């Protein structure tokens, strides 16, 4: 007998990390996908790939990610055909830090896209899971959210907001069957970081990061560093005394 496919929603479905997670889910077990993104044609190409890999059904929602009313509408539509077993919130962009320092509009936009927007999506999706008493919500934060650094604190602050928000949801989920997972990828080789690679940065492969996320989601782990070595690195960075930290150009 065919098992009922699980229902998975992905916000930011064209992100490289999200796409590779989706492939793994599509290949592992019968799954239906709701893909939320801004570019319909690109998202449809990803949906076709997932169907070849085994996805039983895909649907695409194209919408604005920043207005609360739009977010509420997206979440309602994503769950319209049945409750969601797994939700991945993966959208965001890597802002140009100096540009954000010069231009408060750019700064606000970066904070909204990477901080407020994922938090609102998390709130809205979690509400449905708490009502049902089931589901796994995976939110992509960043190692950048662990400590503010001069090279990247606008992004870091937004991801720090996500970290605290998800922590609160986890506290709320304690004692229920709802699982809330916060993923903190290190620098990953994706189109978002292409300029870092050109500068010679060591980046983790998107496949390895996706493998960590899929594994963390399956186990319902509260915090997943991807790759795992970043747990140790960030523990050191978080605890560096200020006199040492202030001398570092990171």
């Amino acid at each position, binding site marked *: 007998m065919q098992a009922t496919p699980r229902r998975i929603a992905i916000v930011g479905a064209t992100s*490289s990390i999200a796409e590779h997670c989706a492939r793994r889910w599509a290949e592992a077990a019968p799954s239906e996908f709701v893909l939320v993104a801004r570019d319909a*044609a*690109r998202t449809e*190409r*990803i949906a*076709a*790939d997932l169907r*070849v*890999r085994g996805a039983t059904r895909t649907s695409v929602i194209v919408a604005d990610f920043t207005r609360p009313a739009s977010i509420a509408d997206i979440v309602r539509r994503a769950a319209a055909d049945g409750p969601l077993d797994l939700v991945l919130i993966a959208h965001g962009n890597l802002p140009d830090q100096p540009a954000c320092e010069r231009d408060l509009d750019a700064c606000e936009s970066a904070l909204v896209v990477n901080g407020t927007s994922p938090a609102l999506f998390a709130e809205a999706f979690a509400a449905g899971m708490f009502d049902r008493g089931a589901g796994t919500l995976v939110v992509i934060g960043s190692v950048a959210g662990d400590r503010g650094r001069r090279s990247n604190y606008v992004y870091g602050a937004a991801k720090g907001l996500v970290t605290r928000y998800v922590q609160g949801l986890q506290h709320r989920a304690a004692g229920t069957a709802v699982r809330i997972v916060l993923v903190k990828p290190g620098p990953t080789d994706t*189109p978002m970081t*292409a300029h870092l*690679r*050109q500068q*010679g940065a060591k980046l983790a492969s998107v496949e390895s990061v996706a493998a960590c996320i899929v594994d963390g989601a399956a186990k319902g782990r509260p915090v997943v560093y991807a790759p795992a070595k970043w747990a140790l690195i960030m523990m050191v960075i978080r605890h560096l005394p200020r006199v040492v930290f202030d001398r570092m150009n990171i």
Partner: protein
Amino acid sequence: MLTVSSWGRLGSWPHDAVALTDREAIPGALAARPGSAIAYGMGRSYGDVCLNPDGGLWLTAGLDRFIDFDPELGRLRCEAGVQLGQIQRFAVPRGWILPVTPGTWMATVGGAIANDVHGKNHHARGTFGDHVRRLRLVRSDGSVIDCGPDLRADWFAATVGGMGLTGIVAEAELQLMPVAGPWLDVETFPYDDLDGFFALADGSEGDWEYTVSWVDCLAGGRGRGIFMRGRHSTERGRPEPAMGARSMPFVPPMSLVNPLSLRLFNLAYYHSGRLKAGRSLAHYRPFFYPLDNLADWNRMYGPRGFYQYQSVVPRGTGRDAVGAMLAEIARSGEGSFLAVLKTFGEATPVGLLSFPMPGVTLALDFPNRGPRTLALFERLDAIVLEAGGRLYPAKDARMPRSLFEAGYPRIAEFLPYRDPKLGSAMSRRLLGD
């Protein structure tokens, strides 16, 4: 700038690299770049076919989506950056397999087309290009050309084996081959000389899908080795072997392949092959891709890297030419245990510049020892030229233009199909720009 090398690791050079991740965005990306560039997938070709030092690169590994699969007919449409291993892992559990595969599954579909790669079954199935039904070529003038063996066949013949110089391959439709499962029946025989090799090869090609042999490059012109043949088995349901766990974690300060290690390895390999001769059942992964089991194995040649020298010579002159090359190599003491001897079938090449032709192919790795190694290649070049053979561009980093022109008589037919904004170190070396 991104520092990039190819599989031979002869050097690494800065490139202005731009990643292509959306196949619909390729025309715009091509139009936006002023200078010339070349597509780079997984960097599994050995020499400079995929390099363009101080120039542009199109990184295609992110074009890795499947587009459509027909499980009844075994037809797969996918983007050009899909790796062959992704196809095998997808297709084999569904009863299909790539009909032609090279010795690594990390090559991309685009690279397999641009180099018109072959495998152990050339005598049965021809080259990779023989199983491409359609490909979509994006040109720098913004045009998009869909071509295949029955559609704009001239563009298809120029692009298959065209070294990436006719445009960017965005996607392809491949015809897969049905299989019962992942297993092959394999038989192994030692041979004492080249006549023994040819007798085994000729006696096997009728009934055996795959044939290949390891040749002892130190045994001189006699050419002893181990011959292996395989065909798909109806065996199913065995547990799959674990693979891919090991890697070469660092670059040793000097090549681990040297005259002493080579002598020891070849003796041990030949004699253990003699002892193990017989029948066995092999999973397709170790059978097709033995080296993929050791990630980054190319690092074993040390910081100076290595060359591969792969030639094909016609059957009429082949016995003597292969003997002469092996004698020359043994005399030099150069070479590596990675030495392959195989016959090619009679199939008409698909591409204007496809490497395989009826005859026998010899492929050997050589640690880069500078002028000594290059001088040996010149002596081998003379043998190949004399025999009416040619070298494989996918493996080459140094052949003289005269040898390329002698080996590939259809260059003039190919040139009109070149894209003016695609160029590589190899195109400058062998075609003049």
